[in-house]
């Protein structure tokens, strides 16, 4: 197989699995999860970062590319503040925009997300907005200067897989930027399915962090993402959508 790099904001990545830092029983697990996942990108909630320099940041290997996120922001203004704070704190220029003003369902606010994307892209950030898989919101983010878009597979934390499969398929088809499926992927098979569809990458946190053995699960996700990507590149064979048909009951008379 030829070299298959994922390019986001001019940065080449070998791994198509992004991981997170929340929900672990012990942040000291994070280095081993990074290694087992072979991931190169890790997201961290700025609201959880201790500005004293201790806490989760101390466990992230220096080889990882940080993707700070704006979890906790309820509007574009708060997301922009958090992004600037991340940059000032030395977390780099990548930012995952997460604007949620509904604590009941934790669904992202597309309008505020696109607004924040525009402001931060103009400030030189590499912006990855987390969105509902809505074509118009995705286009708005593209026009606002996003470097990739991150549609949810299912509501965050549900581990339900690709409930939004059809919509994500439309984004893969229509949006020129990398599509990174974020949220809802609870099992490696679901990540594999997203990659087979043509997603550029998957971000997995809950599925790894809340498992009984996060390090082994990280390895399983790595293999699943790699398998799904290879299958996509190889081109899946035709799949029957109906029952197996052994003969030709309707056209058998054509002799």
């Amino acid at each position: 197989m030829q070299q298959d790099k994922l390019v986001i904001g001019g940065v080449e990545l070998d791994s198509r699995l992004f991981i997170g830092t929340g929900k672990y029983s012990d942040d000291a697990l994070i280095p081993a999860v990074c290694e087992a996942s072979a991931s190169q990108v890790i997201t961290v909630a700025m609201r959880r970062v201790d500005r004293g320099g201790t806490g989760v940041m101390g466990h992230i290997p220096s080889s990882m590319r940080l993707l700070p996120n704006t979890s906790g922001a309820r509007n574009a203004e708060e997301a922009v503040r958090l992004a600037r704070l991340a940059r000032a704190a030395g977390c780099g220029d990548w930012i995952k925009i997460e604007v949620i003003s509904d604590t009941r369902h934790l669904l992202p606010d597309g309008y505020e997300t696109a607004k924040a994307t525009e402001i931060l892209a103009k400030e030189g950030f590499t912006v990855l907005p987390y969105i509902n898989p809505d074509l118009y919101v995705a286009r708005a983010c593209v026009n606002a200067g996003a470097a990739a878009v991150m549609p949810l597979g299912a509501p965050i934390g549900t581990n339900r897989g690709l409930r939004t499969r059809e919509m994500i398929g439309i984004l893969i088809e229509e949006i020129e930027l990398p599509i990174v499926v974020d949220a809802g992927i609870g099992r490696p098979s679901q990540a594999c399915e997203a990659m087979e569809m043509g997603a550029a990458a998957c971000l997995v946190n809950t599925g790894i962090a809340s498992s009984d053995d996060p390090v082994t699960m990280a390895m399983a996700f790595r293999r699943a993402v790699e398998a799904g990507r290879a299958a996509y590149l190889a081109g899946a064979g035709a799949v029957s959508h109906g029952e197996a048909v052994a003969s030709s009951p309707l056209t058998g008379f054509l002799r």
Partner: protein
Amino acid sequence: MNHPVLADHFAPGEAHFDECLAEWPRERRAALAAAATTHDVLAALEKDVLSPKDFMALLSPAAEPFLEQMARRSREITLRFFGRAVNIFSPLYISDICTNHCRYCGFNADNHQKRRHLTVEEAAAEAFALADAGIAHILLLTGDARHIASPEYIAEVAARIKPRFASVGVEVYSLTLEEYRLLLQNGVDSMTMFQETYNRELYEWLHPAGPKHDFLWRLNTPARAARAGLHGVGIGALMGLDEFIHDAFCTGLHAWWLQKHFPGVDVSLSVPRMCPHEGSFEVKHAVNDRQFVQYITALRCFLPRCGITVSSRESAYMRNHIVPIGVTRVSAGVSTAVGGRVVEAENSGQFDISDHRSVPEMVRDLAALGYQAVAKDWEACDF
């Protein structure tokens, strides 16, 4: 009605929880609980989105044989949404002068004990001792004496200590909309307000005098705080005052209503229960351990994303066992007296605590359970 701001009590066009509560009178609640069947309980455990009726099934006697199944379901939901992380916080009592006459409370104005009101600098010294111990989320508590522990005083303490804390919450008397806004401007991001009981008649008997006597004013306080823009609103009933099923149901219903009407607000629950003998007050409806677990697991199934706090009223044994079931926030390094860390305390506190673990001990014990104690879970974006 004698309220500081009458218009704020019934703002035109605003929904109020008392209207929702009125749709669930005691007779209806009792009938539903009595009619709940095994089928209702198992069906509720299979659902992703539960109705108030499903919630009642899980609280009902019909659910009692299914406690283990409820605990498993609750644990699974909690792991998905909160992971293996538990937020730790510490309460800080800064004034115990109180004009209320709550029959069950150690701060009751009729209790002629020595009282203490910390100056802003004394409060800061106590708070900073907690910050030094690793606490990032702090909850400021006062008695109900607005002529001494005024909203301006609370705001001043909050502003003074905010630079050392990621989150400053308050558990004080009911404030007006403008007063909550004042606190918000001074670094307070969340509030906790215990309704004590949702039984209005009982409530008015328990609180015979003082500002707290007004049931509706208190009932609508969490919504008022949410309207003022606070990020977090915590509620809870003091379990043991009324029959378990009624206050348990109404607490869940209140949180459910707040989530629906204030989707941007982080609604959380506390589940304090009284000891069978709380001082000289006779607790008529003490909640036993099985009911307590039933309550927590039913809340988790009904309100999957709500934070659930268990205070040091519960023993270390109980807290260690219920954290994995559904609890997301615990206190540590607790004293219910005013002072005691840096400045001298005048009395032993509002109530006796059962779990005396320090912050490092709590961190250690959570780790032994396979959970990470998270000091900083959230911070306002206005830094």
